[in-house]
């Protein structure tokens, strides 16, 4: 929709300012740009025997986007990705990358994309430099391996073997190895799985870096905060279907309850006390060491005054109040009725 509006807007402006120019030419250029959604997936289905791994999925990824696929293990994220990359055959449906069918002309597609596979290892007895060199030559490219390694902070490891790297270093290496052909689209499959929080944050910086270079990034993850922090748009996937697709902010905004109010008290209370508060949809006791109640509310601003009044009236021995915006975890919970476990 915004792109269409842009076309109309441009036509108008062109007609006003440059009268002798053919407005249709401008329109067609813009239409092509719009049609060049860099990835297009239509009615994609993949069955393994009786198991339906991907169930009639359709979506598009736009140029320069950082696109996330969020879902639990086994939701069909990797299968979808590998079909787009031309590594697996779909049962039905079609996928295009830059308007090129990723099965009929998979070599053309492979030339333009960078792929990081989930938990992929590299040759045991080649150094990092040699591996980058080798992979670059697979594309008929030559690379400055040292510069690439430096960009992910692995320069001093250039003559090491992959098995001598830490988990985070391995993932960084595998990410930089997916860039040897200077691809326009980079696919990262679970890039931070199994990493400690610090290594994960470190990797997020690199992913943002790739994105700011103008490359389109598609990543899969089962970490809610990763999708929320990194991605421009997120497709939430469960049981082979896309259950929601939007920007993280919109996904959360469209929730019935966009806020969590956590109330910690000095002694245990019946949860019913909080039920009457304005705008509160559900109340859950989430006590750990102190009694704690989580209220899910549509709007924090509406509910807080009412909450404070209740506290005063009922003489609740309050120790703490937290107001938190909802996150993608809550979106997943609301859409699928399941927790997106870590």
């Amino acid at each position, binding site marked *: 929709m915004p792109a269409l509006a842009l076309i109309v807007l441009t036509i108008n402006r062109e007609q006003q300012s440059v009268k002798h120019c053919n407005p249709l030419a401008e329109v067609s250029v813009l239409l092509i740009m719009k049609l060049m959604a860099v990835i297009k997936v239509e009615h994609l289905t993949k069955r393994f025997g009786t198991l339906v791994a991907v169930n009639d999925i359709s979506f598009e990824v736009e140029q320069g986007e950082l696109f996330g696929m969020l879902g639990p293990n086994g939701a069909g994220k990797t299968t979808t990705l590998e079909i787009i990359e031309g590594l697996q055959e779909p049962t039905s449906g079609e996928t295009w990358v830059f308007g090129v069918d990723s099965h009929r002309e998979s070599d053309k597609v492979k030339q333009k994309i960078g792929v990081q*596979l989930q938990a992929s*290892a590299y040759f045991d007895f*080649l150094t990092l430099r040699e591996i980058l060199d080798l992979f670059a030559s*697979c*594309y*008929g490219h030559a690379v400055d391996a040292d510069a690439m390694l430096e960009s992910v902070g692995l320069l001093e490891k250039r003559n090491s073997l992959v098995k001598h790297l830490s988990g985070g270093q391995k993932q960084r290496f595998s990410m930089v190895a997916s860039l040897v052909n200077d691809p326009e689209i980079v696919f990262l499959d679970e890039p931070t799985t199994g990493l400690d929080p610090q290594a994960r944050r470190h990797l997020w910086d690199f992913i943002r870096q790739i994105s700011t270079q103008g490359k389109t990034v598609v990543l899969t993850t089962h970490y809610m905060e990763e999708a929320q922090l990194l991605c421009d748009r997120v497709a939430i996937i469960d049981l082979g279907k896309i259950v929601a697709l939007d920007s993280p902010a919109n996904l959360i905004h469209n929730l019935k309850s966009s806020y969590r109010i956590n109330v910690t008290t000095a002694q245990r209370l019946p949860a019913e006390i909080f039920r009457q508060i304005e705008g509160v949809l559900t109340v859950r006791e989430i006590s750990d060491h102190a009694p704690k109640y989580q209220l899910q509310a549509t709007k924090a601003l509406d509910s807080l005054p009412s909450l404070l009044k209740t506290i005063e009236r009922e003489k609740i021995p309050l120790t703490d109040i937290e107001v938190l915006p909802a996150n993608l975890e809550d979106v997943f919970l609301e859409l699928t009725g399941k927790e997106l476990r870590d």
Partner: protein
Amino acid sequence: MTFFKLFIASLKIMFRDWLTLFWGLAFPVMFVVIFGLFSVGEGTGSARLAIIDRANTEISRQIIEGLSQVKFFKINDKIASEAEARKAIQDGRLDAAIIIPESLKALHATESFPPQIAFTVFYDKSNLVEYELVRGVLSQFINEVNLRATNAPRLFTLQEEALDARRIKYMDFLLPGIMGMGLMMNGIIGIAVDMTRYREQRILKRIRATPLPPRLFLISQVLAYLVLVFLQATLIIFIATAFFGATVHGSLLNLYCLTLVGTLIFLNIGFIVAGVSRTSSAASGLSQVIGMPMMFLSGTFFPTSGLPEVVQSIVQILPLTPLMKAMRAVALNDASLVSLGLELLQVGVWIAVTFAIAARTFKFQAD
């Protein structure tokens, strides 16, 4: 250029993997050494013999003199009694002892024929092969003595004419066998384990995610293995000839050609094994199951002509058999490749058949 880089990378991977490399190269060499040590006495043509002279006559001295002339024997003249001789044989210091009996004295006293005079021979029962030689030479010697002593006319003589000046030693026979075993085991196990491991580690998938035609990667692997087999063959030939007296009687070039071409069969089989195995340990096991019987049945260590009929027919359909025949024909009889048309045809058919099966079964991806 890309292919050259791939090939170099494959070589680096192979030659940096010391442990695997060691087993690939050392295993056949170990066989050379073991068999070499077993057959080290063979062909030296000597046995240590003690003569205990109980007669001590002119004739017995002549017999001792005669035995000393036989090149095959190294006479130990320090041993004078039967007990000493028995002890020496038990200790392994002596191969055999012969006793000239006292009854020999009677030979001179009468003109008529004395009762038969028996020479007693002791030998080490555990060294049968050696004894067969000793016995052969001794009985020939005794015959000769008989003939001379009785002045019997010689009606027949055997005029010996060697048709083949070469003397084929067991090590000569063994050398191409071990080369065959080495190339087969390296080909099957090496490729099968490497490929399944690459698949487990998703390296094959990672390569398929690039525009590189997968066959180029496979060809580079095959070439790296041919280099390995070439080195292995060289090492086997070197150790067998330098340390264990083996001789390659034919053209080395032909032998190497057969080695490399024959390896292709087993590399194909390796790809088939990798195609049907899910894990690298399964591939390793299956490779052994396929390789071991072939190693023993295709005449690697001993000629197959002594095997029962049924087994023989199995032997004939094994891919190592024609290759082994051709390699032996070259190594032992200097056969030309043209004269090995049938064997080469069989090898060629095996390459084609295994390639066709490999192409159908081997997959880059597990799913």
